[in-house]
């Protein structure tokens, strides 16, 4: 493969690398209670470290989720202190024991006595540490549950605009990657920071108490280690970014090729695909090796520098024993301290990544929580009971963005029980009109009334309950077919569900399924054809008793013959309802009371089928196939 082609290949898919990201994220098992060791775990994987914008605010807000467990947290805090102190004390107690053994007058009884005290100290430490982790996991999991619930509830309140402008994968990753990172931090990091700090301070004090000169030797090593850590971290970050970019490129390539796999086969393009994949795959590998290498040497470098410090103190301590009469017991505990001293510092520096990505994750979660919800109902909002379904649009103007108007001065009315159809090309604004009537979006100018009441003065839930929608996208929920139909009205009886299915001509195929109405729908209804899913959607709308019905390309995937078969049912469904229909296929809208031809956000023709044909205008051209509908 020549260079130019390689370059193009990378460029083509690199754009998607942001979106591709890396789901999966941090691993679950092995979180708490990992080895204290020297932190030689595998290089941290997951997202590149994005620094939080305002760490302080994020921390404060995150901790507000822990408020409810304040009592428990205080207890955890006490446990951490008790645990750390007892472990420090436990290791210090070796000094008198060893000294007792080397000096005159040592005996087994004294030894036994000291060991018993030591055992008691150990026991306290173990119990404290266990309690601390045990309580903390409950607290942190509880907090995560609360955040998750709150985020979800918030999502339910957000306007459709939010969903139209954010991609699902992105929102999804707030729940997975971001909350995982936050959970990781709450689980381990908080406690670890506290205990590390106490450890460092405590060890330092004990070191000073044991021997000032050796303490100086140890402390001198610290900046050296910091330097080394900085050096490795800088390179690691650089290669990590290169790795992420290459990973995104490869993932983009894989996704597109596998999605188009059938086309690849029809065009015998397998060999080219293999060649391109090979290049991207090994490009990624080369970058990954460097990234993982630098990620992986942090442990050995830092760990062994602390071994150097251990060796230095051993040597100098030995000399001090000879020249200054430093006690052997003191030397023993000191070399242990010199290791202990650098460990929490290492851990803290490694925790920084976790903390940063957790805080950045928390910020992204909070950002959604701070999104403006759908404007609440006004105080005087009314409920239409019963709603007759008289819809009037008057001079409605609307644009998704202020600088681009989609609908201009649209006026129309639909009397109860009437059927109004919209035709026009994609982007003409058909779907937009339906988005406005149920207030997915609010209009910029003009007014929309139902039964004479402006929809802004109708309670939103009441408004939407009175409008049943069948959309072009035929998404279903995991659950049985019966549950999916009942979604239209939760208190519908089984008979009503079957009745609705019959109306939508879905009963026939449902009955032929192995478990009939109890057939489980999985993976968005992959086991049903597109047409069948549309029929289920129609049944779902039929079961609701809403007096207004919106059909947005509701039968686009049903073939003309089947459509003809269900026509009768559809007629019955629409009979008692005010219906707004959008259809690509003009045969579907022929019998509407009025047909609106939309172009560029304006109604350019209106009338019933025969009137419009007689006009020999746009509708006539479309109907006779002279113009293409896109």
């Amino acid at each position, binding site marked *: 493969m020549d260079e130019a082609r390689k370059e193009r290949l990378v460029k083509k898919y690199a754009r998607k690398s942001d979106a591709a990201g890396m789901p999966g994220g941090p691993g679950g098992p092995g979180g708490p*209670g990992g080895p204290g060791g020297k932190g030689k775990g595998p290089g941290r994987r997951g997202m590149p470290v994005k620094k939080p914008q305002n760490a302080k605010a994020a921390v404060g807000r995150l901790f507000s989720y822990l408020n409810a467990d304040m009592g428990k947290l205080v207890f955890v805090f006490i446990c951490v202190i008790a645990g750390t102190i007892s472990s420090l004390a436990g290791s210090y107690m070796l000094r008198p024991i060893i000294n007792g053994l080397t000096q005159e007058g040592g005996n087994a009884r004294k030894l036994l006595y000291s060991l018993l005290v030591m055992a008691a100290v150990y026991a306290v430490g173990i119990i404290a540490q266990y309690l601390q982790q045990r309580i903390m996991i409950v607290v942190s999991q509880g907090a995560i549950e609360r955040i998750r619930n709150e985020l979800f509830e918030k999502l339910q309140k957000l306007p459709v605009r939010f969903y139209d402008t954010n991609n*699902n994968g992105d929102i999804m990753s707030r729940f997975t990657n971001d909350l995982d990172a936050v959970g990781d931090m709450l689980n381990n990091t908080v406690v670890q920071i506290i205990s590390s700090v106490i450890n460092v301070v405590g060890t330092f004090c004990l070191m000073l108490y044991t021997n000032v000169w050796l303490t100086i030797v140890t402390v001198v090593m610290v900046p050296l280690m910091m330097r080394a850590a900085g050096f490795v971290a800088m390179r690691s970050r650089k290669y990590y970014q290169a790795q992420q970019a290459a990973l995104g490129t490869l993932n983009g390539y894989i996704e597109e090729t596998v999605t188009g796999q059938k*086309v690849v*086969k029809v065009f015998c393009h397998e060999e080219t695909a293999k060649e391109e994949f090979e290049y991207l795959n090994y490009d990624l*590998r080369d970058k990954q090796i460097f990234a993982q290498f630098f990620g992986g040497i942090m442990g*050995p470098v830092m760990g062994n520098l602390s071994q150097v410090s*251990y060796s230095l103190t051993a040597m100098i301590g*030995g000399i001090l024993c000879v020249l200054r009469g430093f006690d052997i017991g003191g030397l*023993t505990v000191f070399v242990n301290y010199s290791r202990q001293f650098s460990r929490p510092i290492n851990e803290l520096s490694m925790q920084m990544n976790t903390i940063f990505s957790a805080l950045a994750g928390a910020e992204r979660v909070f950002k959604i929580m701070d999104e403006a919800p759908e404007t609440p109902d006004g105080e005087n909002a009314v409920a239409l009971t019963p709603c007759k379904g008289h819809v009037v649009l008057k001079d409605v103007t609307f644009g998704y963005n202020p600088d681009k108007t989609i609908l201009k001065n649209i006026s129309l009315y639909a009397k109860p029980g009437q059927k109004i159809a919209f035709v026009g090309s994609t982007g003409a604004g058909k779907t937009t009109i339906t988005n406005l009537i149920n207030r997915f979006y609010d209009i910029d100018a003009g007014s929309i009334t139902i039964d004479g009441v402006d929809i802004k003065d109708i309670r939103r839930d009441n408004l939407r309950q009175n409008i049943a929608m069948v959309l072009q996208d035929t998404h279903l929920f995991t659950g049985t077919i019966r549950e999916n139909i009942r979604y239209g009205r939760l208190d519908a009886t089984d008979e009503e569900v079957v009745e609705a299915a019959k109306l939508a001509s879905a009963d026939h195929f449902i009955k032929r399924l192995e478990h009939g109405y109890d057939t489980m729908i999985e993976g968005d209804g992959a086991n049903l054809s597109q047409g069948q899913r549309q029929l289920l959607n129609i049944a779902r709308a039929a079961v609701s008793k809403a007096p207004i019905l919106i059909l947005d390309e509701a039968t686009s995937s049903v073939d003309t013959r089947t459509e003809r078969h269900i026509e009768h049912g559809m007629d019955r469904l629409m009979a008692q309802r005010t219906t707004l229909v959008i259809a690509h296929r003009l045969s579907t809208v022929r019998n509407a009371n009025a047909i609106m031809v939309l172009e560029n956000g304006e109604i350019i023709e209106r009338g019933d089928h025969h009137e419009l044909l007689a006009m020999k205008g746009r509708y006539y051209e479309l109907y006779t196939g002279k113009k293409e509908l896109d």
Partner: protein
Amino acid sequence: MKRYAKYIRPYLYAFILGPIMMLTEVAGEVLLPSFMADIINVGAANHDVGYIVQRGLVMIVTAFIMMAGGVLGAWFSAKAALSFGADLRRDVFEKVQTFSFANIDKFSTGSLVTRLTNDITQVQNVLMMALRMLLRAPGMLVGAVIMAFVMNRSLAAIFLVVMPILALTIGMIIKTAFPRFTLMQVKLDALNTNIQEVLTNVRVIKSFVREDYQKEKFAEANKDLKESGLRAFKVVIFQMPVMMVFMNLTTLLVVWFGGNQILDGSMQVGNLTAFTTYVVQVLMSLMMLAMVLLSSSRAIASLRRINEVLDTQVDLTDEGARYAQAPVKRGRIEFKDVSFRYYKNSEEKVLEDINLTIEPGQVVGIIGSTGCGKTTLVSMIPRLYDVDEGEVLVDGINVKDYSLKHLREGVGMVLQKNVLFSGTILENLQWGDENASEEEILQVARDAQADVFVKNLAEGYETELGQGGVNVSGGQKQRLCIARALLKKPKILILDDSTSAVDTATESRIREAFSGSLKETTKLIIAQRITSVMEADQIVVLDEGRIVGLGRHEELMEACSAYREIYDSQMKEEVLA
């Protein structure tokens, strides 16, 4: 295990050197405490400063050698694990390239992508960790125990008592934790599915005012997840105090017995210090092993999913082709008693007893309701699926006797669910023929009625298409797909409902172009619109997998009720109007 050998062999040196370098580090780690013991036992006891300095320098040098070992170990294990993963990923990708359509249908696209991306990454990560820990943990264990025995046999015996008990306990903990983590993963998947569903269905939820209902459902799934998570983590947390109890107990025992030995003069005090370090090392390495085991559970699940792809039997190959060299020359098609079902054990046949002969250069229309088998029927020609009974012949040769490459080069097919790829329009067209001249490309674009709109784009043929061709309209996309297939200069051209979004006027111009520059090519057209097939030389009417009508338009209007019904459903109103 054998199947992975080929991913290891080329990098064998890295697979060996990685762990060995790590062993250098381990060796240093177990040696350092004994040097330390020397300083206390010999140097301090004999007041020998020279000896202390000498030993101290040895220690420092050892520490630097350890660092070199660790760094090199990290390099080799990264190299080994990532190369292993890259090769594995290549093989999975290449396997997918050999998949038949039936294979592709079996795996969903999403799951194939996950296997190629996340699952492989998972395996790489764990493998890398394993390479670093695999020898390290046991090495440290063995090293520390040996050193302990060399120093003091009777004291070291304590390890022999403690270690098996501890190993057993850890084993039991892992065994309890494993299924709990699996369950947690299941709950997590359930929650994620729930979220995904809610996100795609937001309009439905809002229009039926079901927000509260969804909240309840979510809260339930969320609580479920939390509880299963707690159940799993509790076990892991329990591991910690168990370890600590053992570690501290062992330390106490060592100090007690060791102390007594020092008191009666049979042991030196420096050795006691070294011993306490060994206690920590031995227990830590056991703990690390437990960690590796726990995290490997995920990798094993990933590996299983990857193997599912690699182990898939490709049910359609050209290995037995008898005329592997023969290209498709004329484009005569013959179906002889063809039957087909999607699943071997399903009752219902998708196609039944199809007999059909198509002469070179003919235009054949295929029509029928959704799910009646139109797409399946034409898929038999380029062997996207294999017949269950009967045979399909192209130019008198069974399609199974062609090489797939020659067969598919001879048959151009525009799929119903067609895809354009990222890249320019030109690049997309070149899929048909990479070496096509500019003149040829312009010609097919004109034939497919794509030339005019492409030229009207600001960058013409160099216009970048987003993934899936998002920046052209449905009808334009279909025309590009047709042009792409035309560039192959196929002997047989199949259009599977590929002009549904094209207006009738343009469509008839495309058909005109066909009868001009593609006169020799056999053309099969599947359509919903009856006007698309009305003028064909032969029209096939399919119903529930059977041919219920065959002939020209006028003949079918006379003889075939199904055809008439379709005609009426589309034309009646128009005639009235």
